[in-house]
């Protein structure tokens, strides 16, 4: 199938251009540093010199882990945008696409192949970093988040959503422009999610609805919140999450995304990929 050929080509390009190697080296360094930090956390004591109880240590670890995963989520989103933004536009501009599109393959197959290859890269990156980070955290603090697989799925989903958006824009605009637009929208969605939660706390339907709309238009923030939910110990939510003041906090989540929202996100991705294929199909080469 031609789409799989394009997908393999996309992954091979990432490997040949040393993208995977660079990410792997940097990830190992960062995880090494965070491992040192988590190890240091276990040596902290109360002001009177008594050791911190393991429950409190796990709570603190879970919060620091949320921050670390937030960093990885940011790196993932930025990397996904940087790789996806020129994925189609650069090949159209350079002429690489000319000889390939003259072959008996449809532009739908090209888009599907690119998307599959990039999605596979995202899943590989998320699976690798999550497994390594959680292993280091487990070894240093004995803390294991409640649902690590769910965490990886939400993070992958977030990366795939922003990558899909960048790929769509890449069919019409240069890589640089597509990248800037995608990142601005990504951060707007993040702020929109926070604003929506604040609107919920203060009973402002207008702000709450604006947040909901931003999450529907670009579901990245809601997926990030899903990954936070998967990282939080149940105890943390029941004891500390009862106060409504925490609802606007992007690093605390009371409930996971609804099944309806996840269904919408799936439809969003399918729709964007279809729109990308249509956009490339209509484009003059």
């Amino acid at each position, binding site marked *: 199938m031609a789409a799989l050929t394009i997908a393999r080509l996309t992954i091979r*390009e990432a490997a040949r251009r040393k993208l995977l190697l660079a990410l792997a080296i940097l990830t190992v360094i960062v995880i090494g540093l965070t491992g040192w930090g988590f190890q240091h956390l276990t040596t902290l004591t109360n002001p009177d010199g008594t050791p911190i109880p393991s429950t409190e240590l796990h709570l603190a670890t879970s919060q620091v882990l949320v921050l670390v995963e937030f960093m990885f989520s940011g790196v993932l989103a930025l990397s996904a945008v940087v790789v996806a933004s020129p994925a189609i536009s650069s090949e159209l501009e350079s*002429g690489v696409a000319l*000889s390939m599109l*003259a*072959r*008996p393959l449809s532009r739908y197959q090209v888009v599907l192949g690119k998307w599959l290859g990039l999605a596979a890269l995202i899943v590989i990156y998320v699976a690798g970093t999550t497994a390594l980070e959680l292993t280091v955290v487990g070894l240093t603090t004995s803390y294991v988040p409640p649902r690590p697989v769910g965490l990886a799925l939400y993070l992958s989903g977030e990366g795939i959503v922003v990558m899909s958006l960048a790929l769509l824009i890449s069919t019409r605009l240069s890589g640089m422009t597509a990248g800037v637009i995608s990142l601005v929208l990504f951060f707007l969605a993040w702020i929109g999610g926070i604003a929506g939660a604040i609107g919920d706390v203060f009973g402002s339907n207008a702000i709450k609805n604006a947040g909901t709309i931003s999450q529907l238009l670009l579901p990245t923030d809601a997926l990030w919140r899903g990954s936070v939910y998967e990282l939080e110990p149940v105890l943390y939510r029941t004891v500390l999450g009862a106060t409504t003041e925490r609802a606007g906090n992007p690093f605390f989540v009371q409930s996971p995304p609804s099944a309806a929202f996840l269904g919408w996100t799936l439809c969003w991705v399918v729709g964007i990929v279809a729109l990308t294929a249509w956009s490339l199909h209509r484009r*003059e080469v």
Partner: protein
Amino acid sequence: MPDGAAPPAPPVDGEAVRTLELTKHYGASVALAGLTMVVQRGEVFGFLGPNGSGKTTAVKLLLGLSRPTGGEAWVLGRPAGDRATRRRVGYLPELFRYQGWLSAAEVLGLHCRLAGVARADWPAQISGALTTVGLSGHADARVETFSKGMQQRLGLGVALLGHPELVILDEPTSALDPVGRADTRTIIRHLRDRGCAVFLNSHLLGEVEQICDRAAVVSDGRVLAIGRLDELLGTGGVRMRLTGLNETGRAALARRGALAEHEGWFVVDGVEADLVPELVAEVVASGARVYAVEPVRQTLEERFLALLDAEHARWRR
């Protein structure tokens, strides 16, 4: 226009390309204005024109890379852009670029896969293409290390994969040295010998003159002339160095074609080659002394420029 009136649709067997009033507009700009032509299977067809005349636009329409504003086109008997037909077409773009992070053999392997070449045939196809274009010693070198000329050779190799029935070459020698150009001409002749049609898009007139069976001259998206090269170039003429030419001799020359005199040379346009001995005999019989007789043949470049001048003069009127 030697080929005469517009050919009727639909295409008939034996045709590699047929277009009928093919037009392409980009907004208010007209890239192609009613292109009508036929390219037969097994012939080398030159598509000539100055920069911006619509040559590359025509190629992109034939390959389905771009959609026509009007008119129709068929490639190998099927509507232009038909996906299955593209399996039987090889293409070297004018703006050639291949994945620099792949080796030459990997690029060819990729195109074997995309062109639907049977897996078992890949090794022979790849090594054959590399040998044909003179890159067999660079099979494993990354394309990003290639010179522009080597990349163009690779592009030619890519176009030859899968035994195409039609090969479209868009300025195939723009980056090649004289040896590379000669090699390309040899490859094109081999393609013709095995019955493959070659659509050669070029503004290098000498190249076209050497290898093309037929040609079309286009300007501003219009066909100015189309036909066999000898038809396009006309019957030529003869020039003579003479002394003692009297009125009888001058009348004999003028009867054969348009007569012009320049620094002792008398040039008669439009004289068929087999009539030259008879003409010389008449001039000698009239009392003139003949020192030299040379055939005059219009070059493709002269014909090309004359066509463009005529077209521009027509627009000025």
